[in-house]
Protein backbone atom coordinates (compact mmCIF):
# COMPACT_ATOMS: atom_id res chain seq x y z
CA UNK A 1 0.00 0.00 0.00
CA UNK A 2 2.73 2.35 1.04
CA UNK A 3 4.73 1.45 -2.01
CA UNK A 4 1.75 1.92 -4.28
CA UNK A 5 0.93 5.27 -2.82
CA UNK A 6 4.47 6.49 -3.18
CA UNK A 7 4.54 5.28 -6.72
CA UNK A 8 1.37 7.17 -7.43
CA UNK A 9 2.69 10.33 -5.85
CA UNK A 10 5.77 9.94 -7.87
CA UNK A 11 3.84 9.55 -11.10
CA UNK A 12 1.76 12.54 -10.23
CA UNK A 13 4.71 14.76 -9.44
CA UNK A 14 6.58 13.74 -12.50
CA UNK A 15 3.58 14.57 -14.61
CA UNK A 16 3.37 17.94 -12.92
CA UNK A 17 7.01 18.67 -13.72
CA UNK A 18 6.59 17.86 -17.37
CA UNK A 19 3.35 19.80 -17.56
CA UNK A 20 5.21 22.89 -16.39
CA UNK A 21 7.41 22.64 -19.42
CA UNK A 22 4.56 22.44 -21.86
CA UNK A 23 2.27 24.82 -19.97
CA UNK A 24 2.04 27.25 -22.82
CA UNK A 25 0.77 24.52 -25.12
CA UNK A 26 -1.72 23.15 -22.67
CA UNK A 27 -5.37 24.00 -23.19
CA UNK A 28 -7.09 20.86 -22.06
CA UNK A 29 -10.83 21.08 -21.37
CA UNK A 30 -10.47 20.59 -17.66
CA UNK A 31 -12.96 18.53 -15.75
CA UNK A 32 -15.11 17.78 -18.78
CA UNK A 33 -13.81 14.27 -19.23
CA UNK A 34 -14.61 12.82 -15.85
CA UNK A 35 -16.15 9.68 -17.25
CA UNK A 36 -13.43 9.42 -19.83
CA UNK A 37 -10.78 9.57 -17.16
CA UNK A 38 -12.20 6.77 -15.15
CA UNK A 39 -12.60 4.70 -18.26
CA UNK A 40 -9.16 5.53 -19.42
CA UNK A 41 -7.69 4.15 -16.28
CA UNK A 42 -9.22 0.97 -17.62
CA UNK A 43 -7.18 1.04 -20.75
CA UNK A 44 -3.86 1.68 -19.18
CA UNK A 45 -3.07 5.37 -18.91
CA UNK A 46 -2.73 5.15 -15.15
CA UNK A 47 -0.76 1.96 -14.99
CA UNK A 48 2.23 1.98 -12.68
CA UNK A 49 5.36 2.02 -14.88
CA UNK A 50 6.57 -0.88 -12.76
CA UNK A 51 4.13 -3.16 -14.56
CA UNK A 52 5.55 -2.15 -17.92
CA UNK A 53 9.11 -2.58 -16.71
CA UNK A 54 8.24 -5.96 -15.36
CA UNK A 55 6.71 -6.94 -18.70
CA UNK A 56 9.85 -5.79 -20.48
CA UNK A 57 11.98 -7.72 -18.01
CA UNK A 58 10.02 -10.94 -18.52
CA UNK A 59 10.06 -10.67 -22.29
CA UNK A 60 13.79 -9.91 -22.22
CA UNK A 61 14.31 -13.12 -20.26
CA UNK A 62 12.53 -15.02 -23.02
CA UNK A 63 14.68 -13.33 -25.62
CA UNK A 64 17.78 -14.07 -23.57
CA UNK A 65 16.80 -17.70 -23.27
CA UNK A 66 16.44 -18.16 -27.01
CA UNK A 67 19.34 -16.01 -28.06
CA UNK A 68 21.78 -17.73 -25.72
CA UNK A 69 20.69 -21.21 -26.71
CA UNK A 70 21.31 -20.26 -30.30
CA UNK A 71 24.94 -19.39 -29.56
CA UNK A 72 27.25 -22.03 -30.99
CA UNK A 73 29.20 -23.89 -28.25
CA UNK A 74 32.45 -22.96 -29.99
CA UNK A 75 31.78 -19.33 -29.01
CA UNK A 76 30.83 -19.88 -25.39
CA UNK A 77 33.98 -18.23 -24.11
CA UNK A 78 33.42 -15.06 -26.15
CA UNK A 79 29.82 -15.19 -24.94
CA UNK A 80 30.99 -15.03 -21.33
CA UNK A 81 33.28 -12.13 -22.18
CA UNK A 82 30.66 -10.15 -24.04
CA UNK A 83 27.90 -10.63 -21.47
CA UNK A 84 30.43 -9.27 -19.05
CA UNK A 85 30.97 -6.25 -21.22
CA UNK A 86 27.31 -5.48 -21.74
CA UNK A 87 26.45 -5.88 -18.09
CA UNK A 88 28.62 -2.80 -17.62
CA UNK A 89 25.73 -0.77 -18.97
CA UNK A 90 25.28 -0.11 -15.27
CA UNK A 91 27.62 2.72 -16.21
CA UNK A 92 24.49 4.84 -16.70
CA UNK A 93 24.06 4.86 -12.92
CA UNK A 94 27.67 5.81 -12.37
CA UNK A 95 27.41 8.62 -14.91
CA UNK A 96 24.34 10.05 -13.18
CA UNK A 97 26.13 10.01 -9.84
CA UNK A 98 29.32 11.62 -11.10
CA UNK A 99 27.46 13.98 -13.39
CA UNK A 100 24.79 15.51 -11.18
CA UNK A 101 24.89 14.19 -7.62
CA UNK A 102 24.74 17.05 -5.14
CA UNK A 103 26.46 15.01 -2.44
CA UNK A 104 30.20 14.80 -2.86
CA UNK A 105 30.24 11.36 -1.28
CA UNK A 106 27.74 10.10 -3.84
CA UNK A 107 29.80 11.54 -6.66
CA UNK A 108 32.82 9.79 -5.19
CA UNK A 109 31.06 6.44 -5.11
CA UNK A 110 29.93 7.10 -8.64
CA UNK A 111 33.49 7.83 -9.71
CA UNK A 112 34.74 4.55 -8.29
CA UNK A 113 31.94 2.72 -10.08
CA UNK A 114 32.70 4.60 -13.27
CA UNK A 115 36.36 3.61 -13.26
CA UNK A 116 35.55 -0.04 -12.53
CA UNK A 117 32.92 -0.45 -15.21
CA UNK A 118 35.09 1.40 -17.71
CA UNK A 119 37.70 -1.30 -17.20
CA UNK A 120 34.97 -3.78 -17.96
CA UNK A 121 33.52 -2.00 -20.95
CA UNK A 122 36.79 -1.53 -22.76
CA UNK A 123 38.36 -4.73 -21.50
CA UNK A 124 35.29 -6.82 -22.21
CA UNK A 125 34.56 -5.69 -25.74
CA UNK A 126 38.21 -5.61 -26.78
CA UNK A 127 39.05 -9.04 -25.46
CA UNK A 128 35.95 -10.38 -27.18
CA UNK A 129 37.03 -8.76 -30.39
CA UNK A 130 40.47 -10.23 -30.01
CA UNK A 131 39.06 -13.70 -29.53
CA UNK A 132 36.56 -13.46 -32.35
CA UNK A 133 39.20 -12.23 -34.75
CA UNK A 134 40.95 -15.59 -34.29
CA UNK A 135 38.07 -17.75 -35.52
CA UNK A 136 38.79 -18.50 -39.14
CA UNK A 137 37.41 -20.83 -41.78
CA UNK A 138 39.61 -23.27 -43.63
CA UNK A 139 41.23 -21.31 -46.43
CA UNK A 140 40.61 -23.00 -49.71
Amino acid at each position, binding site marked *: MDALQKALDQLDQATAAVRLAVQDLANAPAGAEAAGNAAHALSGGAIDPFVFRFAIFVLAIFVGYYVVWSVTP*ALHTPLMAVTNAISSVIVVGALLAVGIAASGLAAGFGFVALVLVSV*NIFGGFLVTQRMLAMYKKKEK
Partner: protein
Amino acid sequence: MTVNLASFLYLVSGILFILALRGLSHPTTSRQGNLYGMIGMGIAIATTLALATPSAGRFGLIVLGLAIGGGIGAVTARRIAMTSMPQLVAAFHSLVGFAAVMVAAAAIYAPESFGIGTAGDIHAQALVEMSLGVAIGAITFTGSVIAFLKLDGRMSGKPIMIGGRHLINIVLGVALVVLIVLLVGTESKFVFWLIVAASLVLGVLLIIPIGGADMPVVVSMLNSYSGWAAAALGFTLGNLALIITGALVGSSGAILSYIMCKGMNRSFISVILGGFGGETAAAADDGIERTVKQGSADDAAYLMMNAQKVIIVPGYGMAVAQAQHALREMADKLKANGVEVKYAIHPVAGRMPGHMNVLLAEANVPYDEVFELEDINSEFAQADVAYVIGANDVTNPSARDDKSSPIYGMPILDVDKARTCLFVKRSLGSGYAGIDNTLFYKDGTMMLLGDAKKMTEEIVKAMDH
Protein backbone atom coordinates in the same frame (compact mmCIF):
# COMPACT_ATOMS: atom_id res chain seq x y z
CA MET B 1 16.70 15.62 -24.85
CA THR B 2 13.20 14.60 -23.78
CA VAL B 3 12.79 11.67 -21.45
CA ASN B 4 10.75 9.88 -24.07
CA LEU B 5 13.52 10.13 -26.61
CA ALA B 6 16.02 9.01 -24.00
CA SER B 7 13.91 5.98 -23.10
CA PHE B 8 13.62 5.15 -26.74
CA LEU B 9 17.39 5.34 -27.14
CA TYR B 10 17.91 3.12 -24.10
CA LEU B 11 15.58 0.64 -25.77
CA VAL B 12 17.66 0.83 -28.94
CA SER B 13 20.76 0.13 -26.92
CA GLY B 14 19.07 -2.88 -25.31
CA ILE B 15 18.10 -4.19 -28.74
CA LEU B 16 21.68 -3.77 -29.95
CA PHE B 17 22.86 -5.89 -27.03
CA ILE B 18 20.40 -8.59 -28.08
CA LEU B 19 21.84 -8.44 -31.57
CA ALA B 20 25.34 -8.68 -30.10
CA LEU B 21 24.50 -12.03 -28.51
CA ARG B 22 22.60 -13.12 -31.59
CA GLY B 23 25.71 -12.61 -33.67
CA LEU B 24 27.48 -15.29 -31.67
CA SER B 25 25.33 -17.96 -33.28
CA HIS B 26 28.05 -18.28 -35.91
CA PRO B 27 31.69 -17.21 -36.13
CA THR B 28 31.08 -15.27 -39.35
CA THR B 29 28.46 -13.01 -37.80
CA SER B 30 30.10 -12.74 -34.41
CA ARG B 31 32.40 -9.81 -35.15
CA GLN B 32 29.50 -7.78 -36.47
CA GLY B 33 27.60 -8.67 -33.32
CA ASN B 34 30.38 -7.42 -31.11
CA LEU B 35 30.30 -4.15 -33.02
CA TYR B 36 26.57 -3.85 -32.30
CA GLY B 37 27.38 -4.33 -28.64
CA MET B 38 29.90 -1.49 -28.68
CA ILE B 39 27.47 0.81 -30.48
CA GLY B 40 24.79 -0.05 -27.96
CA MET B 41 27.11 0.86 -25.10
CA GLY B 42 28.05 4.09 -26.84
CA ILE B 43 24.41 5.03 -27.25
CA ALA B 44 23.66 4.30 -23.59
CA ILE B 45 26.55 6.48 -22.44
CA ALA B 46 25.82 9.33 -24.84
CA THR B 47 22.13 9.31 -23.95
CA THR B 48 22.85 9.49 -20.25
CA LEU B 49 25.25 12.38 -20.74
CA ALA B 50 22.78 14.25 -22.95
CA LEU B 51 20.07 13.72 -20.37
CA ALA B 52 22.07 14.65 -17.29
CA THR B 53 23.99 17.54 -18.86
CA PRO B 54 26.72 17.61 -16.21
CA SER B 55 28.66 20.81 -15.52
CA ALA B 56 32.03 21.21 -17.22
CA GLY B 57 33.86 20.13 -14.08
CA ARG B 58 31.78 17.03 -13.64
CA PHE B 59 32.10 16.27 -17.31
CA GLY B 60 35.87 16.41 -16.91
CA LEU B 61 35.62 13.98 -14.03
CA ILE B 62 33.59 11.61 -16.19
CA VAL B 63 36.11 11.75 -18.99
CA LEU B 64 38.86 11.11 -16.47
CA GLY B 65 37.06 8.09 -15.05
CA LEU B 66 36.39 6.66 -18.46
CA ALA B 67 39.99 7.24 -19.47
CA ILE B 68 41.53 5.60 -16.41
CA GLY B 69 39.23 2.59 -16.49
CA GLY B 70 39.23 2.34 -20.25
CA GLY B 71 43.00 2.48 -20.36
CA ILE B 72 43.40 -0.29 -17.81
CA GLY B 73 40.76 -2.35 -19.57
CA ALA B 74 42.25 -1.91 -23.02
CA VAL B 75 45.74 -2.81 -21.88
CA THR B 76 44.45 -5.87 -20.02
CA ALA B 77 42.50 -6.98 -23.05
CA ARG B 78 45.54 -6.73 -25.27
CA ARG B 79 47.99 -8.40 -22.90
CA ILE B 80 46.02 -11.24 -21.39
CA ALA B 81 46.98 -14.75 -22.45
CA MET B 82 44.14 -16.76 -23.96
CA THR B 83 44.77 -19.46 -21.40
CA SER B 84 43.88 -17.01 -18.63
CA MET B 85 40.39 -16.30 -19.90
CA PRO B 86 38.61 -18.03 -17.00
CA GLN B 87 40.44 -15.86 -14.47
CA LEU B 88 39.85 -12.72 -16.50
CA VAL B 89 36.13 -13.31 -16.74
CA ALA B 90 35.95 -13.91 -12.98
CA ALA B 91 37.91 -10.72 -12.34
CA PHE B 92 35.66 -8.70 -14.60
CA HIS B 93 32.59 -10.02 -12.84
CA SER B 94 33.91 -8.84 -9.54
CA LEU B 95 34.24 -5.35 -10.98
CA VAL B 96 30.61 -5.29 -12.13
CA GLY B 97 29.52 -6.53 -8.72
CA PHE B 98 31.45 -3.83 -6.89
CA ALA B 99 30.28 -1.16 -9.31
CA ALA B 100 26.68 -2.18 -8.61
CA VAL B 101 27.32 -1.65 -4.89
CA MET B 102 28.85 1.75 -5.54
CA VAL B 103 26.00 2.88 -7.78
CA ALA B 104 23.48 1.84 -5.15
CA ALA B 105 25.46 3.71 -2.50
CA ALA B 106 25.50 6.81 -4.66
CA ALA B 107 21.75 6.49 -5.09
CA ILE B 108 21.23 6.32 -1.33
CA TYR B 109 23.43 9.33 -0.72
CA ALA B 110 21.99 11.41 -3.54
CA PRO B 111 18.52 10.07 -4.31
CA GLU B 112 17.52 13.27 -6.11
CA SER B 113 20.05 12.66 -8.84
CA PHE B 114 18.44 9.33 -9.56
CA GLY B 115 14.91 10.59 -9.29
CA ILE B 116 13.95 8.16 -6.56
CA GLY B 117 12.88 10.72 -3.97
CA THR B 118 14.75 13.02 -1.61
CA ALA B 119 17.15 12.25 1.20
CA GLY B 120 15.08 10.86 4.04
CA ASP B 121 12.16 10.20 1.73
CA ILE B 122 13.23 7.67 -0.83
CA HIS B 123 10.41 5.68 -2.45
CA ALA B 124 9.93 2.33 -0.77
CA GLN B 125 9.82 0.46 -4.06
CA ALA B 126 13.17 1.96 -5.05
CA LEU B 127 14.65 0.97 -1.69
CA VAL B 128 13.56 -2.62 -2.12
CA GLU B 129 14.92 -2.84 -5.64
CA MET B 130 18.13 -1.16 -4.60
CA SER B 131 18.76 -3.43 -1.66
CA LEU B 132 18.26 -6.45 -3.88
CA GLY B 133 20.69 -4.97 -6.36
CA VAL B 134 23.27 -4.13 -3.74
CA ALA B 135 23.04 -7.50 -2.00
CA ILE B 136 23.41 -9.46 -5.23
CA GLY B 137 26.15 -7.11 -6.36
CA ALA B 138 28.15 -7.57 -3.17
CA ILE B 139 27.80 -11.35 -3.28
CA THR B 140 28.93 -11.26 -6.89
CA PHE B 141 31.92 -9.16 -5.91
CA THR B 142 33.43 -11.31 -3.18
CA GLY B 143 32.30 -14.52 -4.83
CA SER B 144 34.07 -13.57 -8.03
CA VAL B 145 37.19 -12.54 -6.17
CA ILE B 146 37.38 -16.00 -4.57
CA ALA B 147 36.72 -17.64 -7.92
CA PHE B 148 39.45 -15.53 -9.47
CA LEU B 149 41.95 -16.47 -6.77
CA LYS B 150 41.17 -20.17 -7.11
CA LEU B 151 41.28 -20.15 -10.90
CA ASP B 152 44.47 -18.15 -10.95
CA GLY B 153 46.09 -20.59 -8.56
CA ARG B 154 46.67 -17.88 -5.95
CA MET B 155 44.49 -19.85 -3.59
CA SER B 156 44.25 -23.61 -3.28
CA GLY B 157 41.49 -25.23 -5.28
CA LYS B 158 40.68 -27.38 -2.26
CA PRO B 159 37.21 -26.79 -0.86
CA ILE B 160 37.36 -24.99 2.46
CA MET B 161 34.65 -26.49 4.59
CA ILE B 162 33.83 -24.43 7.66
CA GLY B 163 31.82 -26.33 10.25
CA GLY B 164 28.20 -25.26 10.40
CA ARG B 165 28.55 -23.16 7.27
CA HIS B 166 25.02 -24.01 6.16
CA LEU B 167 23.71 -22.64 9.43
CA ILE B 168 25.87 -19.51 9.13
CA ASN B 169 24.63 -18.97 5.59
CA ILE B 170 21.02 -19.33 6.63
CA VAL B 171 21.50 -16.91 9.50
CA LEU B 172 23.16 -14.42 7.17
CA GLY B 173 20.37 -14.82 4.65
CA VAL B 174 17.70 -14.18 7.26
CA ALA B 175 19.70 -11.24 8.57
CA LEU B 176 19.78 -9.81 5.06
CA VAL B 177 16.00 -9.97 4.76
CA VAL B 178 15.59 -8.30 8.14
CA LEU B 179 18.08 -5.61 7.22
CA ILE B 180 16.29 -4.90 3.95
CA VAL B 181 13.01 -4.48 5.78
CA LEU B 182 14.78 -2.19 8.25
CA LEU B 183 16.27 -0.16 5.43
CA VAL B 184 12.89 0.38 3.82
CA GLY B 185 11.50 1.47 7.18
CA THR B 186 14.33 3.71 8.36
CA GLU B 187 16.33 4.52 5.24
CA SER B 188 19.38 4.46 7.53
CA LYS B 189 22.72 4.55 5.78
CA PHE B 190 24.17 2.44 8.55
CA VAL B 191 21.70 -0.32 7.73
CA PHE B 192 22.63 0.04 4.09
CA TRP B 193 26.28 -0.61 4.84
CA LEU B 194 25.31 -3.50 7.09
CA ILE B 195 23.56 -5.03 4.10
CA VAL B 196 26.69 -4.53 2.05
CA ALA B 197 28.87 -6.10 4.74
CA ALA B 198 26.61 -9.10 5.27
CA SER B 199 26.44 -9.72 1.53
CA LEU B 200 30.19 -9.48 1.15
CA VAL B 201 30.67 -12.08 3.85
CA LEU B 202 27.96 -14.27 2.37
CA GLY B 203 29.68 -14.12 -1.01
CA VAL B 204 32.90 -15.46 0.52
CA LEU B 205 31.17 -18.16 2.52
CA LEU B 206 29.12 -19.36 -0.43
CA ILE B 207 32.12 -19.84 -2.68
CA ILE B 208 35.01 -21.09 -0.53
CA PRO B 209 33.50 -24.55 0.05
CA ILE B 210 33.30 -25.09 -3.70
CA GLY B 211 36.26 -26.93 -5.19
CA GLY B 212 38.44 -25.49 -7.95
CA ALA B 213 37.03 -27.94 -10.46
CA ASP B 214 33.61 -26.39 -10.09
CA MET B 215 34.82 -22.81 -10.39
CA PRO B 216 33.70 -22.51 -14.04
CA VAL B 217 30.15 -23.24 -12.99
CA VAL B 218 30.53 -20.72 -10.20
CA VAL B 219 31.85 -18.06 -12.55
CA SER B 220 28.90 -18.60 -14.83
CA MET B 221 26.50 -18.51 -11.93
CA LEU B 222 28.03 -15.25 -10.73
CA ASN B 223 27.71 -13.94 -14.25
CA SER B 224 24.02 -14.69 -13.97
CA TYR B 225 23.89 -12.95 -10.57
CA SER B 226 25.54 -9.84 -11.91
CA GLY B 227 22.82 -9.77 -14.55
CA TRP B 228 20.05 -9.92 -11.99
CA ALA B 229 21.77 -7.21 -9.94
CA ALA B 230 21.89 -4.99 -13.02
CA ALA B 231 18.23 -5.66 -13.72
CA ALA B 232 17.27 -4.76 -10.14
CA LEU B 233 19.11 -1.45 -10.40
CA GLY B 234 17.48 -1.03 -13.81
CA PHE B 235 14.09 -1.08 -12.11
CA THR B 236 15.28 1.55 -9.63
CA LEU B 237 16.64 3.82 -12.32
CA GLY B 238 13.74 3.04 -14.66
CA ASN B 239 16.29 2.33 -17.34
CA LEU B 240 15.22 0.01 -20.14
CA ALA B 241 18.76 -0.72 -21.30
CA LEU B 242 19.70 -1.96 -17.84
CA ILE B 243 16.56 -4.04 -17.45
CA ILE B 244 16.96 -5.73 -20.83
CA THR B 245 20.68 -6.28 -20.40
CA GLY B 246 20.20 -7.63 -16.91
CA ALA B 247 17.71 -10.18 -18.19
CA LEU B 248 20.01 -11.18 -21.04
CA VAL B 249 23.06 -11.62 -18.86
CA GLY B 250 21.05 -13.33 -16.18
CA SER B 251 19.72 -15.92 -18.62
CA SER B 252 23.08 -16.36 -20.29
CA GLY B 253 24.85 -17.21 -17.06
CA ALA B 254 22.09 -19.54 -15.98
CA ILE B 255 22.08 -21.41 -19.28
CA LEU B 256 25.86 -21.79 -19.35
CA SER B 257 25.82 -23.16 -15.80
CA TYR B 258 23.15 -25.60 -16.88
CA ILE B 259 25.14 -26.70 -19.93
CA MET B 260 28.23 -27.28 -17.80
CA CYS B 261 26.36 -29.23 -15.16
CA LYS B 262 24.82 -31.38 -17.86
CA GLY B 263 28.25 -31.88 -19.46
CA MET B 264 29.59 -33.08 -16.10
CA ASN B 265 26.40 -34.97 -15.23
CA ARG B 266 26.23 -33.11 -11.92
CA SER B 267 23.25 -31.39 -10.39
CA PHE B 268 23.50 -27.65 -9.94
CA ILE B 269 22.62 -28.07 -6.27
CA SER B 270 25.50 -30.44 -5.67
CA VAL B 271 27.85 -27.91 -7.24
CA ILE B 272 26.56 -25.10 -5.04
CA LEU B 273 26.73 -27.16 -1.88
CA GLY B 274 30.38 -27.60 -2.62
CA GLY B 275 32.99 -30.04 -1.43
CA PHE B 276 33.60 -31.67 -4.80
CA GLY B 277 37.01 -31.78 -6.48
CA GLY B 278 40.35 -30.70 -5.17
CA GLU B 279 40.71 -33.72 -2.90
CA THR B 280 42.99 -35.85 -5.02
CA ALA B 281 41.28 -39.17 -4.62
CA ALA B 282 43.70 -42.00 -4.18
CA ALA B 283 44.07 -43.95 -7.41
CA ALA B 284 41.85 -47.00 -7.22
CA ASP B 285 44.22 -49.54 -5.73
CA ASP B 286 42.30 -52.73 -6.23
CA GLY B 287 45.35 -54.98 -6.00
CA ILE B 288 45.22 -55.94 -9.64
CA GLU B 289 48.57 -55.45 -11.31
CA ARG B 290 48.04 -53.11 -14.22
CA THR B 291 50.40 -52.70 -17.07
CA VAL B 292 50.80 -49.57 -19.05
CA LYS B 293 52.20 -49.44 -22.55
CA GLN B 294 54.47 -46.47 -22.85
CA GLY B 295 55.63 -45.02 -26.15
CA SER B 296 58.07 -42.47 -27.49
CA ALA B 297 57.63 -39.51 -29.79
CA ASP B 298 59.03 -41.61 -32.62
CA ASP B 299 56.41 -44.32 -32.10
CA ALA B 300 53.68 -41.72 -32.12
CA ALA B 301 55.03 -40.03 -35.25
CA TYR B 302 55.22 -43.37 -37.06
CA LEU B 303 51.71 -44.39 -36.06
CA MET B 304 50.12 -41.12 -37.09
CA MET B 305 51.99 -40.70 -40.37
CA ASN B 306 50.72 -44.12 -41.41
CA ALA B 307 47.16 -43.45 -40.32
CA GLN B 308 44.30 -42.44 -42.58
CA LYS B 309 42.32 -40.56 -39.98
CA VAL B 310 43.50 -38.91 -36.79
CA ILE B 311 41.16 -37.29 -34.28
CA ILE B 312 42.74 -34.87 -31.82
CA VAL B 313 41.16 -34.55 -28.37
CA PRO B 314 42.48 -31.54 -26.47
CA GLY B 315 41.90 -30.98 -22.77
CA TYR B 316 42.95 -28.81 -19.92
CA GLY B 317 46.56 -29.99 -20.14
CA MET B 318 46.90 -28.49 -23.60
CA ALA B 319 45.91 -25.13 -22.17
CA VAL B 320 48.38 -25.43 -19.29
CA ALA B 321 51.22 -26.42 -21.59
CA GLN B 322 50.21 -23.86 -24.24
CA ALA B 323 50.57 -26.69 -26.70
CA GLN B 324 48.01 -25.45 -29.25
CA HIS B 325 50.56 -24.00 -31.66
CA ALA B 326 52.71 -27.12 -31.69
CA LEU B 327 49.54 -29.12 -32.16
CA ARG B 328 48.56 -27.12 -35.18
CA GLU B 329 52.00 -27.67 -36.66
CA MET B 330 51.65 -31.39 -36.13
CA ALA B 331 48.24 -31.39 -37.80
CA ASP B 332 49.65 -29.48 -40.76
CA LYS B 333 52.37 -32.10 -41.20
CA LEU B 334 49.79 -34.85 -41.09
CA LYS B 335 47.51 -33.15 -43.57
CA ALA B 336 50.45 -32.54 -45.90
CA ASN B 337 50.97 -36.26 -45.73
CA GLY B 338 47.38 -36.97 -46.74
CA VAL B 339 46.08 -37.87 -43.30
CA GLU B 340 42.58 -36.66 -42.44
CA VAL B 341 42.70 -34.62 -39.23
CA LYS B 342 39.76 -33.53 -37.07
CA TYR B 343 39.43 -32.06 -33.59
CA ALA B 344 36.88 -33.31 -31.08
CA ILE B 345 35.81 -30.99 -28.27
CA HIS B 346 33.97 -32.16 -25.20
CA PRO B 347 31.51 -29.60 -23.82
CA VAL B 348 33.44 -29.35 -20.55
CA ALA B 349 36.98 -29.88 -21.79
CA GLY B 350 39.29 -27.33 -20.23
CA ARG B 351 38.18 -24.95 -17.55
CA MET B 352 35.37 -22.97 -19.14
CA PRO B 353 32.81 -23.52 -21.90
CA GLY B 354 34.38 -23.07 -25.30
CA HIS B 355 37.85 -22.88 -23.75
CA MET B 356 39.45 -25.32 -26.21
CA ASN B 357 37.81 -23.66 -29.20
CA VAL B 358 39.35 -20.32 -28.36
CA LEU B 359 42.80 -21.82 -27.93
CA LEU B 360 42.61 -23.73 -31.19
CA ALA B 361 41.35 -20.63 -32.95
CA GLU B 362 44.32 -18.77 -31.48
CA ALA B 363 46.60 -21.33 -33.13
CA ASN B 364 44.81 -20.72 -36.44
CA VAL B 365 42.98 -24.02 -36.50
CA PRO B 366 40.00 -23.42 -38.84
CA TYR B 367 36.73 -23.74 -36.95
CA ASP B 368 35.29 -26.11 -39.53
CA GLU B 369 37.81 -28.76 -38.52
CA VAL B 370 36.64 -28.58 -34.91
CA PHE B 371 33.60 -30.68 -33.92
CA GLU B 372 31.28 -30.99 -30.96
CA LEU B 373 30.90 -34.26 -29.10
CA GLU B 374 27.57 -35.28 -30.69
CA ASP B 375 28.86 -34.58 -34.17
CA ILE B 376 32.04 -36.59 -34.03
CA ASN B 377 31.62 -39.27 -31.39
CA SER B 378 30.52 -41.89 -33.90
CA GLU B 379 33.65 -41.30 -35.99
CA PHE B 380 36.14 -42.63 -33.46
CA ALA B 381 35.29 -46.16 -34.57
CA GLN B 382 36.67 -45.30 -38.02
CA ALA B 383 39.70 -43.41 -36.75
CA ASP B 384 43.15 -44.99 -36.70
CA VAL B 385 44.51 -42.75 -34.00
CA ALA B 386 42.91 -40.68 -31.25
CA TYR B 387 45.50 -38.18 -30.07
CA VAL B 388 44.44 -37.20 -26.56
CA ILE B 389 46.45 -34.22 -25.41
CA GLY B 390 46.05 -33.07 -21.83
CA ALA B 391 42.51 -34.38 -21.62
CA ASN B 392 41.56 -36.97 -19.06
CA ASP B 393 38.15 -36.92 -17.40
CA VAL B 394 36.35 -36.28 -20.66
CA THR B 395 37.67 -39.58 -22.04
CA ASN B 396 37.23 -41.72 -18.94
CA PRO B 397 35.26 -44.82 -19.95
CA SER B 398 34.11 -45.42 -16.39
CA ALA B 399 31.70 -42.52 -16.93
CA ARG B 400 30.09 -44.77 -19.50
CA ASP B 401 30.64 -48.25 -18.09
CA ASP B 402 31.15 -48.14 -14.33
CA LYS B 403 27.95 -47.47 -12.43
CA SER B 404 29.83 -46.89 -9.19
CA SER B 405 32.01 -44.12 -10.61
CA PRO B 406 31.27 -40.64 -9.31
CA ILE B 407 31.19 -39.35 -12.87
CA TYR B 408 28.96 -42.17 -14.12
CA GLY B 409 26.53 -40.86 -16.74
CA MET B 410 28.69 -37.96 -17.87
CA PRO B 411 28.88 -38.02 -21.68
CA ILE B 412 32.42 -38.85 -22.84
CA LEU B 413 34.40 -38.90 -26.05
CA ASP B 414 34.73 -42.53 -27.15
CA VAL B 415 38.47 -42.40 -27.81
CA ASP B 416 38.77 -46.04 -26.79
CA LYS B 417 36.92 -46.97 -29.99
CA ALA B 418 39.81 -45.72 -32.13
CA ARG B 419 42.36 -48.29 -33.29
CA THR B 420 45.11 -46.69 -31.22
CA CYS B 421 44.74 -44.12 -28.50
CA LEU B 422 47.76 -41.90 -27.84
CA PHE B 423 47.66 -40.26 -24.44
CA VAL B 424 49.85 -37.21 -23.82
CA LYS B 425 50.14 -36.25 -20.17
CA ARG B 426 52.87 -35.93 -17.60
CA SER B 427 51.96 -38.82 -15.34
CA LEU B 428 49.41 -41.49 -14.68
CA GLY B 429 47.73 -39.06 -12.30
CA SER B 430 44.07 -38.24 -12.42
CA GLY B 431 42.29 -35.21 -13.88
CA TYR B 432 40.24 -32.58 -12.13
CA ALA B 433 37.57 -34.98 -11.00
CA GLY B 434 40.28 -36.93 -9.19
CA ILE B 435 39.26 -40.26 -10.67
CA ASP B 436 41.56 -42.91 -12.04
CA ASN B 437 41.25 -43.37 -15.80
CA THR B 438 41.01 -47.05 -16.76
CA LEU B 439 41.86 -46.15 -20.32
CA PHE B 440 45.57 -45.92 -19.44
CA TYR B 441 45.68 -49.68 -18.95
CA LYS B 442 43.85 -50.73 -22.07
CA ASP B 443 45.51 -52.61 -24.89
CA GLY B 444 44.99 -50.04 -27.60
CA THR B 445 46.36 -47.23 -25.47
CA MET B 446 49.90 -45.90 -25.66
CA MET B 447 50.95 -43.38 -23.02
CA LEU B 448 53.23 -40.55 -24.09
CA LEU B 449 54.37 -39.25 -20.75
CA GLY B 450 55.65 -35.70 -20.77
CA ASP B 451 54.67 -32.08 -21.11
CA ALA B 452 52.07 -31.67 -23.84
CA LYS B 453 53.95 -28.97 -25.71
CA LYS B 454 57.35 -30.62 -25.55
CA MET B 455 55.99 -34.01 -26.52
CA THR B 456 54.08 -32.60 -29.48
CA GLU B 457 57.14 -30.69 -30.66
CA GLU B 458 59.21 -33.85 -30.45
CA ILE B 459 56.62 -35.71 -32.49
CA VAL B 460 56.73 -32.97 -35.11
CA LYS B 461 60.50 -33.31 -35.24
CA ALA B 462 60.26 -37.09 -35.48
CA MET B 463 57.88 -36.72 -38.41
CA ASP B 464 60.58 -34.98 -40.40
CA HIS B 465 62.91 -37.98 -40.32
